């Protein structure tokens, strides 16, 4: 790799070839080639068949359910995440550190374990289910159950992207607004919120991406009713079990496409957030 030659002054440090070479090799073997295998398989299907697979009523229903539930989950986390980030950065109270540490639980807890626990809690004779059942609310095997599982596993994303931005915010603007007699809510709406908006949106985007791809927590609670509570990732899994490789690959490709789009959006948002901060 002649590119490693110290042409520019930037490259006085050693290890360029070694580190970039390792990175590229590893990325190629572990990530790119397997993803390429999926894309190749998708290309073998042919556009007409591909379209037939992903536009079949069952696949459409699965995509609709996945997206709807992911949006609900993200909405829940948008509210909860903002609340938590605000409370954890702006107020002092006993138990704050514990509350802060708890935010990472969904990240560290295996998704299958979360799914197992949530399903048992919300089942008709579970702790939550007993309270909800008399009200006529049933969570397992419904859209809501899927959304709850998704929101649990993506809790940390909004909190953890907004929190550092809130911490770094210059208090001078808020002080100024307060002196001018603005109410706390107005200050938040007019002064604080615009500053955290890029990071907030980036956090929500990652939460959405994560929800769209979530599997482990959902399979326990969803009930897998085709056309009703079957998520797209599970449909891909079922297509595999039915020996339908093209079907599995086509659905997986659509999910991959969504994931990449959201990844790009969130990267853009984060770049925007960075610029906001530097300004």
């Amino acid at each position: 790799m002649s590119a490693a030659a110290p042409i520019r002054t930037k490259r006085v440090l050693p290890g360029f070839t070694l580190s970039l070479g390792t990175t590229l090799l590893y990325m190629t073997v572990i990530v790119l080639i397997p993803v390429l295998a999926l894309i190749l398989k998708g290309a073998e299907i042919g556009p007409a068949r591909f379209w037939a697979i992903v536009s079949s009523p069952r696949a459409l229903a699965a995509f609709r359910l996945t997206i709807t539930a992911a949006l609900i989950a993200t909405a829940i986390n948008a509210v909860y995440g903002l609340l938590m980030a605000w409370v954890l950065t702006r107020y002092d109270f006993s138990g704050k550190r514990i509350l802060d540490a708890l935010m990472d639980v969904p990240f560290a807890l295996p998704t299958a374990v979360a799914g197992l626990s949530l399903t048992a809690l919300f089942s008709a004779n579970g702790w939550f289910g007993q309270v909800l059942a008399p009200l006529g609310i049933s969570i397992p095997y419904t859209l809501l159950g899927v959304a709850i599982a998704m929101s649990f596993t993506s809790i940390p994303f909004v909190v953890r992207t907004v929190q550092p931005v809130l911490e770094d915010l210059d208090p001078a603007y808020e002080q100024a607004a307060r002196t001018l007699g603005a109410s706390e809510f107005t200050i938040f709406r007019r002064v604080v919120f615009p500053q955290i908006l890029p990071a907030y949106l980036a956090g929500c985007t990652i939460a959405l991406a994560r929800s769209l791809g979530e599997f482990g927590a959902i399979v326990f609670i969803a009930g897998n009713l085709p056309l009703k509570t079957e998520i797209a990732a599970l449909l891909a899994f079922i297509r595999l079990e039915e020996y339908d490789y093209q079907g599995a690959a086509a659905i997986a490709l659509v999910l991959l496409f969504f994931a990449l789009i959201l990844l790009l959006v969130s990267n853009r948002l984060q770049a925007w957030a960075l610029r906001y901060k530097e300004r």
Partner: protein
Amino acid sequence: MRPQSRLAPRILIGLAVIATLLMIVVPLVYIFAAAFAQGWRVYAQNILDPLTLHAIWLTVLVALIVVPVNIAFGVAAAWAIARFRFPGRSLLMTAIEIPFSISPIIAGICYLLLYGRQGYLGPWLEAHDIQILFALPGIVLVTLFVTSPFVAREVLPLMQAQGSEQEQAAVTLGASGWQIFRRVTLPNIRWALLYGAVLCTARAVGEFGGVSVVSGSIRGQTNTLPLHVELLFNDLNITGAFAAASTLTLIAVVTLLLKSVLEGRAR
């Protein structure tokens, strides 16, 4: 305006605490409640079951392979991206994040399409009698995929923020590459590195979707702990499932404790 501003924090803190109790604490506590539902003896018996012990061992083994590899990768990627400018740099940064946003199921399908008997490399692997899927290598590979961004994600921003002045100074003083890394870079990034490693471990231990595609769930062989939870659940051994789940939960809780200690150090 004064009274309102004193009331608002209380309401918000109250809301935050209640919501967190319902959304996070109760599901966490319930796992232990269900695991001990039939008492200590049944719990111990469930944990000491040879198949559960094997699943624990396999899961630990996978983590022991995956985490060091991803630490090496994470540091290499962070070094290359944070310390040098080269064409395609931002593309590489995005590419590193890919496994983070993809469903693990898709990761599993990718590996199946590549290494399966009917996959692109299948015939070659079979001719050479190499077993990747439904064996340890397959589980390790999928877990590597899923957890690959974690260390890089933590170390990279820190190295970017710190800049390379110290390292450049070391170069001028005639230090070798390895010396610079060990004496200058590593001490600066060690907490972020450990933090990334801790997150990577948690994710490696808990990986379910991707592994379930490539493991084959052979009892006492390729059954990782999260898969074993599902298997016990399907065996109608709910208490056993929660007992196995409780060991995973314990790992998660220890992870978080480690993390908050590390964060304290980092500040």
